[in-house]
């Protein structure tokens, strides 16, 4: 099993964590610079302590993440992180220009010497407000954009694209991906529709901020659809993301995590947006389960459901092993759970030194 470190570049200044969009009145440039430097330190540490990947993602208008363009962060990481793969999980495809996404990922793949993992996401629902895109169009935009991006990477002669949402008279991207035919592709597999699409198009899946029981059902569905499509996903075709914090002992780790405020998902930070997105049909056929993913829960429940991995090295290994056994996931995407300065760096070191070597044997 492989491990990735996902640091959202959380804003470290004083600001509410339950409002979206977050007002710029709370913003301090100094705090933001410090946040970025801390992020770089944590990614550097993960690379040094053997993490297989580092992960960046796209979020807007929030202190939860200072990477509205994850490609920029990934570009910096291509020069800081020397060994680990750089997983862009990912651009919020339906709200972006897909040719630009293809160009940027190809550029990153070149800058990193072929270390890019390309996750194509629909994003958190609030992001549709960011660039004023109708969330009802999300799946169709996503599907078309993904097909187009694959073409930009594999067509060697200029071509035009006459889509339903996108139109280009001629495309011929430079640079092109180092990895051939293109970097490994992932997408969210949380909904049945997504699992079917991923299986049909031979794409890996990832789960973020869900629960192990929900992900387990989704993985089974994905594997069944892949079987129908004539292929068998490998363990590495499934990524599971969970928040983590490791300390020398369980007590210390739990004490650290108990200082954190309850997590409120970005979409739930704005009820008008949450309701508007729900009415748009964004969640698809499995809407109730999709909304359960982000329900507010106590820490103990979140651990039990596999949303949070916390404890000393042995406890954390057991929690990871359970996730591995339940899901057959081959990549664990670990979100920095607590921004506690040196203790967070120590958490990354402990995971790399005391959990990861044993994780490899799973």
């Amino acid at each position, binding site marked *: 099993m492989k491990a990735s470190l996902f640091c959202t570049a959380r804003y470290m200044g004083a600001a509410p964590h339950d409002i979206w969009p977050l007002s710029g009145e709370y913003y301090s440039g100094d705090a933001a610079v410090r946040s970025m430097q801390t992020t770089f330190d944590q990614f550097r540490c993960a690379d040094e302590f053997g993490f297989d990947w580092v992960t960046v993602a796209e979020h807007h208008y929030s202190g939860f993440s200072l990477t509205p363009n994850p490609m920029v962060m990934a570009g910096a990481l291509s020069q800081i992180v020397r060994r680990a793969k750089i997983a862009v999980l990912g651009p919020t495809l339906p709200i972006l220009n897909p040719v630009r996404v293809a160009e940027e990922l190809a550029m990153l793949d070149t800058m990193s010497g072929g270390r890019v993992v390309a996750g194509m996401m629909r994003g958190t629902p609030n992001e549709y407000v960011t660039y004023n895109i109708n969330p009802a169009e999300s799946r169709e935009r996503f599907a*078309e954009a993904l*097909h187009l991006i694959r073409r930009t990477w594999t067509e060697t*002669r*200029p*071509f*035009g*694209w*006459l*889509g339903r949402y996108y139109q280009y*008279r001629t495309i011929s991207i430079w640079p092109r991906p180092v990895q051939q035919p293109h970097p490994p592709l992932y997408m969210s597999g949380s909904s049945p529709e997504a699992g079917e699409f991923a299986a049909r198009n031979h794409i890996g899946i990832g789960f973020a901020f869900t629960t192990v029981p929900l992900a387990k059902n989704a993985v089974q569905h994905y594997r069944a659809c892949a079987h129908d499509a004539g292929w068998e996903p490998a363990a590495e075709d499934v990524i599971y993301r969970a928040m983590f914090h490791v300390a020398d002992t369980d007590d210390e780790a739990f004490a650290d995590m108990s200082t954190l405020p309850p997590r409120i998902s970005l979409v739930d930070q704005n009820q008008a947006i949450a309701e508007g997105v729900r009415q748009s049909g964004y969640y698809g056929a499995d809407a109730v389960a999709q909304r359960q993913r982000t329900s507010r829960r106590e820490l103990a429940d979140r651990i039990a459901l596999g949303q949070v991995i916390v404890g000393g090295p042995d406890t954390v290994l057991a929690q990871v092993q359970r996730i591995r056994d339940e899901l057959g996931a081959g990549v664990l995407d670990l979100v920095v759970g607590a921004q506690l300065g040196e203790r967070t760096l120590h958490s990354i070191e402990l995971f790399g030194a005391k959990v990861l070597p044993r994780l490899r044997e799973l």
Partner: protein
Amino acid sequence: MSESAFAQRWAGDGGRLPYYEAGSGETIVAIVDGERLPTRAHALLAERRRVIVFAKPADAGSAQEAARRIGAALARLGIERFDLMGEGAAAAAAMWLAAAPEADIGSVVLAAPDGPPDEAFREMRRPVLVLSRTKDQSDAGGRYRMLLADCHFMLVYDAGPDIGAERPEALAFIAREFFERRDLFLVSRENGRTFP
């Protein structure tokens, strides 16, 4: 305008070659190989142009012979200058017609061409736009692209062999752009303003 606006007429030697006509203005000739004609795309084109649709004659034997018969029919109708669209397996007939030295053809659109292109098409000097489908694994469009070094090539997303029926608005839009502007169609002239 709908497909029902097209009138069926007869042309060619002995008036045995059926065709469909609608619209007014400069002429577009479409050669198709399907049974369902005219399509919605033809109707959309006929809103601004005179559109004449021929089915590829089933008894012509070869694409070259089909082109000869349609060329003769057009001559009898007095149609000397036109833009040309070849669809599906009729793409080759359209290319042979475009290759005829006496033809005064502005530009050529090949929609989901089917079947192998003839090596002779390599000499084509008229502007050609090849529209290739994405729904299936056919690479016929790609083979035309390889042969026609200077052609334009576009993928029509979510379309199978019958682009005119599956993506009529897209086909009519891009064909009209190419017929009117030829190579300049690369530059968009769409209004991007959200509000005036």
